[in-house]
């Protein structure tokens, strides 16, 4: 059977197809069908010939097989230095082999490639900093994911995720109505405590257009309320778009480049439509990476920049604290030892390490760095889609060990983690290894610590 009903080379483009995939619990039938999926060798080789240019080709060719990248990879360390986890090996045995065989690979081989691309690499890009040639296996594996996606060899959740973006322009099934209603609901819900609190939708010419991760409206709408409270406190002129509010990209994790483009264009359209001065995105690492760092390239913007200047939440917050738009009550600063999880996507891959330290300097009395830290930090263990793939849950749990040990070494029990993936990974590592740590986004911490200006407090009713 060449093409399965659920597992095939065609991406999801309709609600019905999405529904069919979703109702196949844990992708049982999907993975069964994958065992019989044909490899379109001509297409595979054709794609490689068109897209494997200077950079990737040279990396593949000149890799000196020196192994200096080994210890840079957290999955190599977490798996007791299994040589099969050496970054170079993971690429040479997949992409290298496909190129050597000029695309003539079979179903079994593609299963190995898929497993490697999604369970042995989170595309954290750390190895690229340790290779004398600067060979970035994270970029290579991401490229491999694209090849896999084109052949239908993609984990079930990733196929669903990219389908969601294609159908809903969000990683989850949230319609424009759902989103707008959630905004209204949250504003109402918190208005009593915060008189005048608003979540303005589609306001023109605001200073800030705020965008989120779909998990927030879907699973933690309070996060949206917290963002509103902090903007309110800081006196910002802000808005959210009714369409183009989602910054994440499971399509990026899936290697579905076409969906990546569709997704970021929806956000760029909102930027232009509402004519805001700048964009701020919630505490999510890959959302920022996808929409701000990589997105302009998918959308074909030669400047490499988003249509309006775009900032991660930590940048906005650092500025608000620096300029005194939000003031911290010194008595309420975090007293206990606290550490910070540097997200690969906005620290290593976007240079925001100093910004994170600046925030910690305003809010923590005993800030402890993990070792290594900043751009050299290890992946949380759940990046690149790893958290979300049931098939590789065990491998993911093993991968969490490195982060667990890093956190424990700091002696801190509280981990500030302004990234959804890191946040999840740390939550799961506590669940699996029970080491007694807590974790938090910044928003709830800041709300607890901020000095609320008198005029923003609810007025006591005159009795």
């Amino acid at each position, binding site marked *: 059977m060449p093409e399965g009903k659920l597992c095939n080379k065609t991406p999801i483009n309709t609600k019905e197809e999405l529904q069919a995939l979703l109702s196949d619990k844990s992708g049982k039938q999907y993975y069964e069908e994958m065992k019989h999926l044909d490899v379109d060798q001509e297409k595979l080789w054709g794609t490689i010939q068109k*897209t494997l*240019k*200077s*950079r990737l*080709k*040279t*990396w593949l*060719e*000149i*890799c*000196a*097989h*020196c*192994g*200096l990248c*080994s*210890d*840079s990879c957290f999955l*190599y360390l977490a798996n007791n*230095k299994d*040589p*099969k986890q*050496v970054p*170079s*090996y993971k690429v*040479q045995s997949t992409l290298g082999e496909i190129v050597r065989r000029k695309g003539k690979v079979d179903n079994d081989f593609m299963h190995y490639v898929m497993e490697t691309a999604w369970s042995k690499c989170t595309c954290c890009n750390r190895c*690229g*900093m*340790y*290779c*004398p*040639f*600067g*060979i*970035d296996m994270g970029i290579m594996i991401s490229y491999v994911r694209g090849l896999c996606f084109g052949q239908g060899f993609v984990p079930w959740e990733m196929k669903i995720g990219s389908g969601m973006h294609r159908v809903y322009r969000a990683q989850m099934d949230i319609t424009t109505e759902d989103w707008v209603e959630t905004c209204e609901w949250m504003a109402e819900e918190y208005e009593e405590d915060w008189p005048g609190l608003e979540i303005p939708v589609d306001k023109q010419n605001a200073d800030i257009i705020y965008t989120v991760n779909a998990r927030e409206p879907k699973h933690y709408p309070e996060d949206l309320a917290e963002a509103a409270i902090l903007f309110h406190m800081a006196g910002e002129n802000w808005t959210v778009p009714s369409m183009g509010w989602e910054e994440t990209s499971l399509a990026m994790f899936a290697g579905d480049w076409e969906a990546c483009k569709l997704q970021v264009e929806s956000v760029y359209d909102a930027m232009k439509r509402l004519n805001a001065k700048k964009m701020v995105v919630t505490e999510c690492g890959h959302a920022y990476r996808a929409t701000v*760092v*990589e997105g*302009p*390239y*998918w959308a*074909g913007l*030669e*400047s*490499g*920049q988003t249509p309006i200047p775009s900032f991660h939440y930590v940048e906005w917050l650092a500025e608000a604290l620096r300029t005194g738009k939000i003031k911290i009550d010194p008595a309420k600063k975090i007293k206990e030892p606290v550490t910070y999880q540097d997200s690969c996507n906005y620290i*290593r*891959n*976007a*240079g*925001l*390490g*100093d910004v994170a330290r600046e925030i910690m300097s305003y809010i923590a009395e005993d800030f402890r760095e993990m070792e*290594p830290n*900043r*751009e*050299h930090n290890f992946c949380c263990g759940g990046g690149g889609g790893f958290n979300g793939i049931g098939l590789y849950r065990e491998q993911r749990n093993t991968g969490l060990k490195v982060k667990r040990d890093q956190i424990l070494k700091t002696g801190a029990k509280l981990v500030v983690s302004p990234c959804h993936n890191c946040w999840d990974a740390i939550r799961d590592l506590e669940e699996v290894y029970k080491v007694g740590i807590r974790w938090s986004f910044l928003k709830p911490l800041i709300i607890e610590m901020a000095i609320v200006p008198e005029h923003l407090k609810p007025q006591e009713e005159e009795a």
Partner: protein
Amino acid sequence: MYEFVTGPLAWLAFGIFFIGVIVRAVNYIRGLDWKLDRVAYGANPSHGARGAIRSIFFWLVPFGTRSWRFYPGMTVLFFIFHFGLIFTPIFLRAHNMLLAERWGFSLPTISDPVADILTIAVMVAGLFLILRRIALPEVRILTTAYDYLLIAIAIAPFLTGFLAFHHVGDYRFWLITHILAGEIMLIAIPFTKLSHFVLFFCSRAQIGMDYGIKRGGLKGKDLAW
């Protein structure tokens, strides 16, 4: 024979080497694609240049990067090997005598004992690189016969030159073999992985531009290599 290997064959080898490395570099640069690589090379030349220079510089300094500091043993081997490999033949007295005789000019030279030490150092470092490939599982799994061949190509001119210089056995034989080995290496550079002679700089510059432009550079943040 001597006339042939130091005459037409030498011309050929040097010609292939020089043209070859230029072609490799030009092809590399022409193959860069801002959209595929997702790096806006053209839009941000000064950030790109800064990133590229930093990326090359720190890696040329022994212990200049975290990776070099993490593997001190390998770093020492690596720098001795590469330094000896490039420095020795260029400043060797005998090579420069030949140069003066044929082309009427020469470079400053190092004394013969220094050359001897460098030559031995290259060979010993090479030997350790081979042992490392056998001993360490993470390197063994990557290693192919091709990797050994490349080390052999790189060490051969040193071993044969050493034997010839010290008149071990048949001088003429070792001299000719030495010259041939050197020419094989020159010709191999553009066609094999030894092309990293030039592609090292290209690749480092590229990843430097990537960080210098896209991944933090425009935020004014230099990557701590």
